[in-house]
């Protein structure tokens, strides 16, 4: 393994200064991608600047917005009841990400900055209209996550800049989300394809009645009724993983669904549109036709699950 020096700054300022003075350096958080890339000789930095001892980056703040520090680990996210309840798609994603050992150290910032087309947290964050908070010497800037991803393993950030966290808008009532990862194994696997959806519904029927229905009936019974209630979709978000060089929003499908009544037909149509937007490739991890097909299936399933969760 190539030699490198390892620096452990205690503050963001110290980290920025270190980068400036060292020159040949990269930031490292949990290291589960960086260390692998070094071992596989894909990169050979002279210096690593560790971000994981900077306390400010390790907090989840629940104020007007939800703010997740970039060095929050996946395990931290997984255990967060608030995220599980309100940002369920993100909970879904970290639950099936890597393994316990990986989740214990790998960070959400690392997952996003590594920008793998299969990054599990990317699609959920996209459907929550997440903004990326970036620090440099001049101060802080904020960009939509959607614009942050440039391509595979490439993000809109200068090397010296530090992603400090993610800002997620508070979701209106009757919002529900889901992330479905389609993989061969049930653990330690990368997605063949993945879909996250978020719906904000505007029900025109008695909410309490719907809630009672949800509580009393089995999921499949509720699901079958759900589509007959004539609920209107106020807002829809659909994001897909491993179907393009970067995690992709299916905006056409979102637009289609928005303002529509949530019916089986509408969901199927939205799923078809999402699938037509996807531009997957044949790779050893999955064939393009199959990925496109799966986008259809997973989108439909994720929308239904999101709708159900909107009433949880």
């Amino acid at each position: 393994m190539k030699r490198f020096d390892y620096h452990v700054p205690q503050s963001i300022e110290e980290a920025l200064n270190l980068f400036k003075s060292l020159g040949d350096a990269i930031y490292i958080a949990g290291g589960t991608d960086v260390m692998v890339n070094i071992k596989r000789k894909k990169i050979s930095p002279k210096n690593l600047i560790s971000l994981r001892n900077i306390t400010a980056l390790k907090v989840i703040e629940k104020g007007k917005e939800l703010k997740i520090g970039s060095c929050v680990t996946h395990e931290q996210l997984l255990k967060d009841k608030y995220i599980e309840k309100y940002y369920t798609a993100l909970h879904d994603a970290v639950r099936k990400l890597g393994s316990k050992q990986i989740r214990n150290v790998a960070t959400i910032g690392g997952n996003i900055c590594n920008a793998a087309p299969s990054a599990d947290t990317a699609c959920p964050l996209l459907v929550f209209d997440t903004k990326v908070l970036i620090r440099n010497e001049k101060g802080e800037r904020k960009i939509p996550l959607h614009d942050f991803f440039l391509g595979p393993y490439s993000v809109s950030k200068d090397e010296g800049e530090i992603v400090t966290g993610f800002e997620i808008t508070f979701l209106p009532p009757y919002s529900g989300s889901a992330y479905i990862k389609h993989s061969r194994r049930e653990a330690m696997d990368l997605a063949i394809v993945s879909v996250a959806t978020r719906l904000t519904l505007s029900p025109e029927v008695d909410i309490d009645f719907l809630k009672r229905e949800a509580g009393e009936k089995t999921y499949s019974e509720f699901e079958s009724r759900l589509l007959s209630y004539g609920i209107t979709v106020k807002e829809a978000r659909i994001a897909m993983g491993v179907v393009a060089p970067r995690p992709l929003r299916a905006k056409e499908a979102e637009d289609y669904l928005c303002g529509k009544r949530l019916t089986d037909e509408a969901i199927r149509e939205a799923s078809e549109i999402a699938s037509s937007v996807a531009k997957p490739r044949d790779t050893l991890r999955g064939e393009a036709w199959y990925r496109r097909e799966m986008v259809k299936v997973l989108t439909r399933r994720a929308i239904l699950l999101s709708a159900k969760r909107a009433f949880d």
Partner: protein
Amino acid sequence: MSFNIIGKKIPKKDAPFKVTGQALYIDDVELPGMLYGKILYSKYPHARILHIDTSKAEKLPGVKAVITAKDFPPHFRIGFMKDNPPLKGTKVLSTRDEIAAVCAISPEIAEEALDLISVEYEVLQGIFDPLVAMREDAPILHEEVGSNILKLPWRLVCGDVEKAKKESAYVVEDTFTTQWVTHCCLATSGCVAYFDVNNNLTMYSNTQIPSLAQNEFLEALTALGLRNRRVRIIQVTIGGGFGSKLDTYPYEYIAILLALKTRKPVKIVFSRDEEFFATSPRQCTITKISQGCDRDGRLTFREVEMILDNGAYTSWGATTPSVMMMPISSLYRVPNVKYTATCVYTNNTYCQAMRGYGNPQATFAIESSLDHLAEESGIDPYDLRIINANEPGEITPQGFRVTTCGLKECIEEVAKRLNWKEKRGRGLKKRGVGIASLIHVGGGARVYKSDGCGTIIKMDDFGKVDVFTGASDIGQGADTVIAQIVAEELGVPVEDVNVIHNDTDICPWDVGVHASRTTFVAGNSALFAAKKIKKKLLEILSKLLEVPPEDVAIKNGIAFSKSDPQKSIPLARALRRIHFTTGGSMLMAEHFYDPQNENLNKEFRGNLSAAYAYGTHGVEVEVDTETGKVKILKYVAAHDVGRAINPLLLEGQIYGGVLQGIGYALSEKMIYDNGYLKNGNFLDYKILTVRDVPPVEIVIIETNEEAGPFGAKGIGEPGLVPTAPAIANAIYDAVGVRIRDLPITPEKVLKALKEKNKG
């Protein structure tokens, strides 16, 4: 028959060392002055080597030796057909071909040195498809052989297949294909070689064949000009075998040569990347199968033509057709059989033994085809199997003499536990059930000149027993089973039996840990040695207790008179009495056991094994028809094991086998693209995790095999043999599509469903 120790769940003897981290695996071995070897592999799957320049590598500080083909004798070859030079000097035939090797004072320096070696190639057109390699105009890969088809013509003909085919009421024909899969031992391959001052070689090794490896390394020493030397193989704790270490490999000869050059211990341990691309997988096969039955469902014939991708060189794995013949000729009663197999050189990785040794590939074809035949004939797949199930006393067309056989019970038990009659053929909720059976060698397998194993036993002054066995332990529990057998026979506690099994300087000859043979062969060897020492012991005890020998019994390390239990003496005291006296003696005994089985003759007939193991697996699956995903709801594995010497370890073999089998069926595949391995890591080569384990139910059928130790037959491999066809058959039952190509991926299932819905 009641036993004290046989049949008990005795924990594995070496487990305490393994749970504390004290067990030493090959990567844990460190010797004074040890150097680290690394190997440079070919950049291309097929090329001429024009020039190798090692001068820069040699100059790197810390590098102690750099070797190329020139350092080996010019005609030195290894492997089953002696077609594999440890280092390739003129031509490379696969991307795992070894071109040069270095050793240095640290692994890092050795690796750096590899980067400094430059090789000039003339790239040649590669052949990656055995069907292409078989064409007349295909370039010849091994000029000295003169053909890409190996001179190993496998051909078994029993009865008259053509006639039987004409007379059959129902006939089916299918083609099945299987993929490369690899052992994925959690510990990677490696060795440490060193020469003492007399040029005798010691190898710290992972090998599954210490005695054969010793022989092969001796040949190598002779070739290197070191005549009449000694080779000592010391097996470290072996971190997984599954057949992967059933041969010697170039890296071992490279380590030997580096050690000879430097006069220092040289260690080569593979990285995980190397373990994936530079070890030998299970053969991929193309199998054309046809079988038929009469109106009553009695099988009339089975005809199988197989093509095996041998890869670039030939290891023992090229003899897997000898085992494939077994289920083809003898799984279920089938009077007329024809089998041919062609092994073909390609520029792919060369293949080797892997748990089941060809049997999983053959059984996938046979048992899938049998379900097809059931459908064709309108007979329930369960009934078809019962009608044709083998029975004790039968002699199969290939000449196997079936002694014990619990196949029928296995089929019945599995069907019962699956609720077959209720569940089969309903296709409700896209669920279905399937079964498949197996036959495997259960009493050794005579693939070498000897199928034997030696044992030496001694007893010490403290009543303890040391057993020196030729057997190897690769985690399956030979150490424990042998201790149980000896303890049972001698009447001593199992803790008092120490099994030494890892050093050719101390332990007798054994052909190796393969063919599910260790419990049967090494167990019998230990049992007979124990009987011999017991005879001596009883004579001595009869004198000390002043009763006739037949009146003496031993239990828990105490000898006593059966007629007058008051007369007793602790074994330890008795042993000291006869030791510490004028003209004293110490108890020792030895036995070499070679089972009464036969090498296959020129027509490939003969009683390959002294006993045969049977089993049936049943599975209930649910298929997601939108994604093609197959979920296993329930898995039942019934095995005729003769007798369960140690149910704890036995279950471990079955659970482990089943999960490997499920991986083979559903998720594992080495993806080669024009000779390059594309998924050589644990993320992309998908062995199953704990999350993928379905509920597995084990049924143990005991048939008490007379030839086996306390009635036991082998069980090491059978656990994964019928897994894939059982699953494939269940998928067919669930959704009506038959996948004939392993692994059964969601893509294949979905594609087949779409085609079915079209038509």
